């Protein structure tokens, strides 16, 4: 049972989505703050790709890296193409779209967790 990463992956996914939700909240709250630049995370697949590889253990003396965790969210500054005169680059409509995406993906991830759990329970019964 040790090699089932389904729950870990789903947890990483919700962790990523929560972090993204926080950034959306920051952007929306600062939608009228002069000089504020909108921030976002890179896509989940890109964030996951970077941590997907681990070093092989070919000798008992090799140290295994500690639990493979996602990098802390990298904040990327959006292109300030639509910055207003006050230097603010938040696009409220765009943030609302991202909000919908996060909602959808989060629901998906939690439902997946629920289904994985049901699968385990089925195997046990």
């Amino acid at each position: 049972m040790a090699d089932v990463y389904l729950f870990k992956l789903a947890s990483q996914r919700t962790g990523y989505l929560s972090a993204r939700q926080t950034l959306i909240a920051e952007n929306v709250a600062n939608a009228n703050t002069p000089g504020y630049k909108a921030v976002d995370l890179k896509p989940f697949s890109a964030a996951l790709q970077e941590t997907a590889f681990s070093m092989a253990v070919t000798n008992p003396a090799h140290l295994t890296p500690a639990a493979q965790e996602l990098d802390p969210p990298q904040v990327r500054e959006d292109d300030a193409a639509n910055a207003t005169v006050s230097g603010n680059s938040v696009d409220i409509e765009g943030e609302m779209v991202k909000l919908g995406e996060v909602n959808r993906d989060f629901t998906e991830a939690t439902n997946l967790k629920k289904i994985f759990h049901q699968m385990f329970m089925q195997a046990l019964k």
Partner: protein
Amino acid sequence: MASNDSLNASLRIAGSGLETQSARLRIISENIANAQSTASVPGGDPYTRQTVSFEDTLDRASGAQLVRVKDIGRDSSPYRVEQDPGNPAADDKGFVKLPNVDVLVELADLREANRSYEANLQVAKQSSDLMNQTVGLLKDV
């Protein structure tokens, strides 16, 4: 739990946004309410339009970028002057100074504040929604 922490943080951030936008709505309503307020003494200065400005601020407890009111300033643009000798606030030449409030500008500002308030509300609603979904995993286990 990390994901609930950041959902809590986003609730706090949305809360700070709601707070500042409502402070802004208060200032706008003060301006509109006083759009005709002249001085109480002849020749005196009337009500001066107030302005509000925001800044982002780091909340050390959660590491989140909150927003707060930076300062409430006074608009330094000139007052409107009208010839109205019968007005109690008229000076000895019959000129009355009226507030430098343009109701149209205030209404445009009102709309923007309203829009930002709604957006923040939407974020707050969704954040608690997502938390409920996580807690909901404990249902019918």
